[in-house]
């Protein structure tokens, strides 16, 4: 095993993200606490990450002895993740500033019997959020997602998931003065750690049954060698691993945490969480199930099929009943995870693998734009309310007083519903046609019916905004950064809805340019000749 300096290119985006995260913390500590500076550093840093990611693109290969992949797919996903983080950073400032100015200091629940303890003594901004910390955590979560998306080894997969999750647990609870925020963090943390247990146990069983392999392509080989003689423990391992990952994607029946966490977490974090971890975990899914374990497709395939069908159906049906827009978007994002699982299933059939991966990439881009856009407008509207709540009723008559904002929101809703000419439509078309190609016709029919159901609750927002009278005048203030976020999303949704060709080509070349690195040398402690070989 040798260290090859060029391997560093494979993790260059991660390194830059880390450096920016540290820089943000240090700047806050040593230089200035000015919000704009911190945000600016984070934003510029993420732009640099994107540049480095593009720069690092090369021939598909592995790095660090097959621990991570360096290929078009990872670069595509890293760009996407950096983009998600960038928009989340841009929309955070207003949110954090709003906290400092108008924070209701601790809507505390009085507990009978005991006198309440003094409010949490946390240094930092008036509302208790250290802004540098916030941006740093956002960046660290991004770093974890990038590792997760490029992992080709169970160890890196696990590290990526945990780096991402730990940062997200804290982000969900970063507003300790709001009980809901803390509650969201606790729920997310307990269930997340619980699912990590399953994930790890699955990994242990796979490791044991494949003869000590942790590298994905070696696992694939070992599974192929086992053939029909694969032990039940291996199936159990695959099942447990699937449970762990499905939790991160918030698929039914492992979705219970997500509406609560989405509702309780600060909204920019929610927006970030609704796209980033999904994208990263789905890439891990693709690498693990689509590329490493296609031989076991008749084991995980039916299970995933049912999970996908249940996820989209329950997500859409429950979304109809929601009165809080964040919860509605949470269930909608569960439904979209269900659609995306079609791509994972399709990737299990060898002929469609690249096409299915490409369609997922395109869908993720579309989903990223429309969902972040919708969350941004949700923040703006909620801030017009004195109590900062997120009721769907607040959207009544918004079209009369804020036509552009409403038009943008309507566009995002139409795109989420998958009506042309928007990015969401082409995303669905691409994804579903990959599904049909892979023979998943029944599932695609279920998905199409679900899209029709989803039209109902997405368009309800539109009806509220444009066709109902306004109960009381509201004034939504929009800062330049928020305007920029909304504009990027609007332009993207329209661009990829009218001229999706270029993005489809990028997604396809990303999916086709995919590495399956293997370790150069397998170290076996009991084989002295190998140890000597590796010492070269």
């Amino acid at each position, binding site marked *: 095993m040798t260290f090859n300096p060029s391997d560093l290119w494979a993790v260059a985006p991660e390194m830059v993200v880390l450096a920016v995260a540290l820089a943000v913390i240090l700047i806050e500590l040593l230089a200035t606490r000015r919000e704009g500076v911190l945000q600016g550093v984070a934003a510029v840093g993420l732009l640099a990450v994107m540049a480095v990611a593009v720069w690092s693109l090369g021939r598909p290969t592995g790095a660090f002895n097959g621990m991570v992949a360096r290929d078009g797919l990872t670069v595509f996903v890293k760009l996407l993740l950096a983009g998600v983080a960038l928009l989340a950073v841009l929309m955070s400032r207003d949110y954090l500033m709003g906290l400092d100015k108008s924070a209701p200091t601790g809507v505390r629940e009085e507990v009978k019997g005991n006198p309440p303890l003094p409010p949490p003594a946390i240094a930092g901004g008036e509302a208790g959020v250290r802004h540098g910390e916030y941006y740093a955590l956002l960046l660290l979560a991004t770093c974890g997602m990038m590792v997760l998306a490029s992992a080709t080894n169970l160890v890196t997969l696990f590290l990526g998931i945990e780096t991402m999750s730990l940062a997200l647990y804290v982000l969900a609870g970063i507003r300790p003065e709001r009980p809901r925020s803390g509650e969201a963090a606790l729920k997310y943390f307990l269930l997340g750690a619980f699912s990590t247990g399953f994930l790890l146990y699955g990994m242990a069983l796979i490791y044991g049954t494949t003869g000590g392999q942790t590298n994905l392509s070696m696992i694939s080989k070992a599974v192929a060698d086992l053939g029909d003689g694969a032990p039940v423990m291996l199936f159990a391992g695959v099942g447990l691993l699937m449970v762990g990952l499905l939790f991160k994607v918030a698929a039914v029946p492992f979705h219970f945490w997500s509406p609560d966490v989405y509702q309780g977490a600060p909204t920019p974090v929610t927006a970030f969480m609704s796209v980033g971890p999904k994208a990263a975990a789905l890439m891990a899914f693709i690498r693990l199930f689509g590329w490493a374990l296609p031989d076991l497709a008749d084991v995980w395939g039916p299970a995933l099929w049912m999970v996908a069908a249940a996820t989209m159906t329950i997500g859409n049906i429950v979304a109809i009943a929601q009165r809080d827009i964040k919860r509605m978007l949470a269930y909608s994002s569960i439904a979209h995870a269900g659609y995306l699982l079609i791509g994972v299933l399709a990737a299990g059939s060898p002929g469609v693998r690249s096409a299915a991966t490409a369609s997922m990439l395109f869908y993720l881009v579309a989903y990223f734009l429309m969902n972040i856009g919708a969350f941004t407008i949700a923040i703006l509207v909620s801030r017009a309310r004195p109590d900062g709540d997120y009721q769907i009723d607040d959207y009544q008559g918004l079209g009369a007083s804020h036509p552009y904002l409403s*038009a943008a929101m309507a566009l995002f809703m139409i795109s989420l519903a998958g*009506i042309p000419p928007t990015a969401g439509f082409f995303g669905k078309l691409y994804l579903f046609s990959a599904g049909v190609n892979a023979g998943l016709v029944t599932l695609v029919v279920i998905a199409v019916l679900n899209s029709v159901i989803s039209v109902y609750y997405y368009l309800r927002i539109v009806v509220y905004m*444009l066709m109902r009278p306004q109960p009381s005048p509201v004034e939504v203030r929009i800062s330049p950064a928020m305007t920029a976020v909304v504009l990027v999303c609007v332009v993207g949704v329209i661009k990829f809805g009218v001229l999706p060709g270029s993005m489809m080509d990028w997604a396809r070349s990303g999916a086709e340019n995919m590495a399956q690195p293997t370790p150069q040398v397998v170290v076996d402690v009991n084989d002295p000749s190998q140890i000597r070989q590796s010492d070269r």
Partner: protein
Amino acid sequence: MGSLTLLTFIPAAGAAIVALLPRDNPKLVRWFSILVTGIVLAIAVSLYPQFDRGIVGIDQEATFQFVEKGAWIPAFNINYFVGVDGLSFPMVLLTALLCFLCIPASWGITKGVKGYHALFLLLETGMIGVFVALDFFLFYVFWEIMLLPMYFLIGIWGGPRRVYAAIKFFIYTLIGSLLMLIVMLVFYFNVRDPVTGANTFNMLHMMSQANHGGIMSLNHVRVLLFFGLYICFAIKVPVFPFHTWLPDAHVEAPTAVSVILAGILLKMGTYGLLRISYPILPDATHSFAWFLAVMGMINIIYGAFCAMAQKDLKKLVAYSSISHMGFVMLGMSALTDAGINGAVFQMFNHGTITAMLFLLVGVIYDRAHHREIDGFGGLANVMPRYLGITSVAFFAGMGLPGLSGFISEAMCFIGAFPVWRTLTIISIGGIVITAAYLLWTIQRMFFGETNPKYADLPEINGRELFTLLPLAAIVIFLGIWPHPILGLMNTSLSYLGELVRSVAPL
């Protein structure tokens, strides 16, 4: 950029600009919209002398006119492919004309003027796009682009029950487009590009039966596909029993939107049947032509009787549309030269006549703020000029000789009679009912005692005359000399009829 691209996208560009105009200046928005639709109309009219009446189109790429073709989404082999032939060009002219006249007819809109006009222009893009698209996917996208502005125009600027009407319209149309999407994907996966062998959305490739493969060579699948498309288009026409959205939508929609809805959107249904179902599935069409004829007859009679029962003038006009679209169905189901030519000519004529009717309803509604037929009376003394124009429209609607409606209806009957004798004879009864309810309406509204409440209603004004007189002139002119429009379509449509007739039924 070719003229069809300009025609299609100038309104969309105009919509974007309208959205950016200052909010407090509705006059500017209105005049700018007139300018945009005027440019579109000018371009459409300027294509008229260039249009070659001698070549066919339909399924021959070489004989389409003003063709533009370029890759749009290479991943799915989707092209930006537009062109017109004798079937689509009259519809493009009609669209450009009605959109232009509808802007002045929208003068009364005071709420959200900008949004209204932006959506209206976007709607025009969708409509022209549907008529010029020759790639099925492009057709589908334009079809959907049409859906949303219409939904908003009814839902935001409509009458008291506008949200209900808009959602009903939306759900019906969405179900239709979902069916179209499914049929389209089945076509896509089973039709091969003869040159490259790849799957294709190109309608002209789909029309060549040699390219069909897979499940599309199974007869029962072809029948299913035919009926999938039929339901989608029947919802738009609308054919009984899918028509219930129409009266609601019309009653709630503002005048100009009703004009577009009845004048153009309804034509999309029959246009889709002729453009897609007929040439792509000629055998199924040939087998089920009788079905189309029966539905046409039902529409004629049912629409006419419903119209007769209405108290609301606008609902009456809406049902008369259903009845008149029945003539189109009957004519096109005959597959004869006269029948198909008559059907498309009737599409054009109905577009102008029904536009007049809805504009006239709008005129009286703006003054009296209600549309109860029995609430008026003796308006002939109050508004003689209004009576004059109304008579032209009503007489054209009942097919009086000398007006355009007569020629197209007569052609439909002449074409259909040798093929469907009984059905045609029953349908002719529909004309009698039509004449009855229209004359009765005129009598109730304009003659008899003058309702003192409306004794001093102002006469029809210059702006309204501006929207109505061109249509009246066209109706009279085509009634005397139909060749300018009929000549455009004859070559293509005779070929289309021959195409379907020559294929053996399933």
